[in-house]
């Protein structure tokens, strides 16, 4: 007798942090108490992409989507939903616009526009159970390649699919495999780049946690195609759960004979090992990554030679990103002609984005290339938080730029984002509203770059530091028009002369904010004002004499005695003394204190 109901509990990093594993224990206990353990199965899955509202519990077959579930809610779910068939209303996801509970995931805006290829199994199967992966046609792609296709045929299929690298560069994957296959060597390597260093990005982590076998299967397919027998996953040590899931998956695949010697009775053998990174952003760059794996300093070197010719231990090496790889088995099974019908002219398939910032539905989403920013922000993302006004969306992380209102209807793909002055990058997408200061945003990314620059080349090491200083000066209200020119010139020099991709793209946030928000820079420089009210140094605290009743509360709370005034008379702020702490504004009961 098979189970009548499946309860999927998210076991991703986000949800585990809020005790989702205890929900599983409690559910199992409650089911056992009611003798239902043979009728209802509890499954720990990977990330649903809805981490902000986690822990997520999904009940099937009715697709009920519970959010922010606590271990103590388990009993009610069993007693009400499982036994009596009544959904637990208070745990249902509420539509951010209509404020109504949504009965099932089929009716959630968040999922409606999504198309899940790379994330096809995340939040659907138990990632620690290879059988569930096999039931979802897992390893059939590898079987098809090894038993029915020649290596060149596999490469041609990937070329025909139009798949491009999801790690940032967007290089055609099939072509890359072809290069690696052409070089002769005693040993070749397949490397999976799981360094994922962009601030806020977690798509690769979620794939490895939620569907580790898809990455393993793809690496083996790549090995078969290019003639490599060794695979290496370069993963940051800060991803303990992903590491553990990968290890379990590799072990299971070996037990099933899907990794190891003579796979599917052929003479193809393939093994995978893990290599740990210490979480430096630059180590995600493929040459730096290879040096780091060899035990050298994680610094980039000039290309060519490309890794395909001389990579790990000077052998031909194919480096692919996690998400790129996760697409491979689906392409082999469904065919290149299925994949290349999805997306735009030159960007095929889907892209996973980490949607963050001032948006209602924060989370991990996967949409067909060509979806517009408007659809992503307003339909999937549920609009801007607290009804505020949309200002910009930052894509491409520290290498990318800001897009504005006028870009909302641009279909998202590699080329359109570049043409709009940003880039795809690894898929970070941070939404900003009217309260965000764009000069500060640029400064934030430069801070990151300065921190992460390896220091090997001068333009990046010193140039970025100067960019950061100049931006800081502007936010302090000390900027000049010459500074603005310096920013632009220096940015161009760094882009042209830096050694690796980190330096070559690091000025993008500066250039794109100057392009799109020139007035905001001018306001900081000429009027000494921050229109968004974020730059503390530029704030002026002011008491409205019409509203002030002279209670004196603000004056008593001012740490530097900057407020003067007679009792029952309007008070004044001595701006020369004021340190802009904001205490007066917080304390005043009559909203008399404002900033301008």
């Amino acid at each position, binding site marked *: 007798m098979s189970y009548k109901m*499946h309860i*999927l509990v998210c076991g991703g990093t986000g949800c585990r942090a809020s005790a989702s594993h205890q929900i599983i224990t409690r559910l199992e206990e409650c089911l056992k108490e009611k003798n239902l353990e043979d009728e209802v199965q509890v499954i720990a899955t990977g990330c649903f992409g809805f981490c902000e509202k986690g822990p997520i519990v999904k009940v099937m*077959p009715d697709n009920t989507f519970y959010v922010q579930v606590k271990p103590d809610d388990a009993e009610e779910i069993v007693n009400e939903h499982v036994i009596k*068939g009544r959904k637990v209303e208070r745990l249902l996801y509420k539509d951010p616009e209509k404020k109504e509970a949504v009965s099932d995931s089929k009716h959630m805006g968040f999922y409606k526009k999504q198309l899940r290829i790379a994330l096809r199994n995340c939040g*659907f199967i138990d990632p620690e159970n290879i059988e*569930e992966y*096999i*039931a979802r046609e897992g390893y059939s792609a590898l079987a098809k390649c090894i038993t029915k296709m020649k290596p060149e045929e596999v490469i041609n299929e990937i070329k025909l699919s139009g798949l491009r690298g999801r790690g940032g560069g967007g290089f055609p994957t099939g072509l890359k495999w072809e290069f690696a296959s052409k070089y002769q060597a005693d040993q070749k390597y397949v490397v999976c780049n799981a360094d994922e260093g962009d601030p806020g990005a977690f798509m690769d982590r979620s794939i490895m946690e939620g569907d580790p076998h898809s990455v393993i299967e793809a690496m083996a397919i790549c090995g078969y195609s290019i003639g490599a027998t060794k695979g290496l996953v370069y993963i940051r040590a800060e991803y303990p759960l992903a590491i553990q899931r990968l290890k379990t998956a590799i072990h299971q695949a070996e037990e099933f*004979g899907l990794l190891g010697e003579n796979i599917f009775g052929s003479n193809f053998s393939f093994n995978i090992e893990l290599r740990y990174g210490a979480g430096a952003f630059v180590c995600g760059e493929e040459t730096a990554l290879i040096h780091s794996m060899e035990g050298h300093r994680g610094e980039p070197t000039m290309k060519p030679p490309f890794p395909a010719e001389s990579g790990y231990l000077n052998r031909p090496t194919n480096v692919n990103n996690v998400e790129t790889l996760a697409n491979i088995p689906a392409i082999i099974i469904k065919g290149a002609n299925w994949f290349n019908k999805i997306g735009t002219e030159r960007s095929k398939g889907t892209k996973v984005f980490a949607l963050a910032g001032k948006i209602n539905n924060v989370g991990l989403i996967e949409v067909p290339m060509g979806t517009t920013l408007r659809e992503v922000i307003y339909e999937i993302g549920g609009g801007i938080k607290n009804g505020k006004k949309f200002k910009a969306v930052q894509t491409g992380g520290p290498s990318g730029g800001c897009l504005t209102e006028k870009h909302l209807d641009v279909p998202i793909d590699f080329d359109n984002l570049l043409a709009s002055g940003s880039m795809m990058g690894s898929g970070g997408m941070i939404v900003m509203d009217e309260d965000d200061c764009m000069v500060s945003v640029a400064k934030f990314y430069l801070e990151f770059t300065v921190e992460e620059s390896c220091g090997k080349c001068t333009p990046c090491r010193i140039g970025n530091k100067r960019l950061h200083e100049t931006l800081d000066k502007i936010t302090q209200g000390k900027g000049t028009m010459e500074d603005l020119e310096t920013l632009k010139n220096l940015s161009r020099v760094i882009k042209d002369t830096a050694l690796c991709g980190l330096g070559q793209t690091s000025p993008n946030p500066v250039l794109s904010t100057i392009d799109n928000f020139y007035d905001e820079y001018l306001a900081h420089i000429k009027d000494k004002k921050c229109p968004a009210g974020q730059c503390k140094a530029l704030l002026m605290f002011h008491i409205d004499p019409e509203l002030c009743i002279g209670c004196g509360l603000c004056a008593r709370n001012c740490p530097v005695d900057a407020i003067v005034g007679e009792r029952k008379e309007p008070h004044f702020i001595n701006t020369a003394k004021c340190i802009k702490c904001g205490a007066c504004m917080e304390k005043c009961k009559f909203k008399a204190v404002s900033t301008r």
Partner: protein
Amino acid sequence: MEKIKSLADLKRIKENVQTKIDLREKSEQVENLIQIKVAMATCGIAAGSKDTMNYFIENLEKNGIAAVVTQTGCMGYCYAEPTVEITKPGKDPIVFGHVTTERAEEIIQKYLKNDELVADIIPVNFETI
């Protein structure tokens, strides 16, 4: 663990484990499948709705009918329990009363297979979510 040595081995394992995720795969596309909701509140259970539900689950598969069987709360027809609501894709839901296992068999053979209606249909005039 017996190793997978051929495509046939993989296919065999896949068939064996398919049932593990069948329910989930069907739920992903409920709108294209027949949905059967069995009322499982106190009165329903007392009237034998559990047997009815099990009967549907076991026999739908035998008859090759792809359907999703769920339970719901009290539908308010205690006099006619066990009650079952059936929605065929693109059609309005129909509620059947007094669905014992024998009647379940009749519904499978007549309504689900041949679109023939059977006796004891409860008129519904409200929307459910």
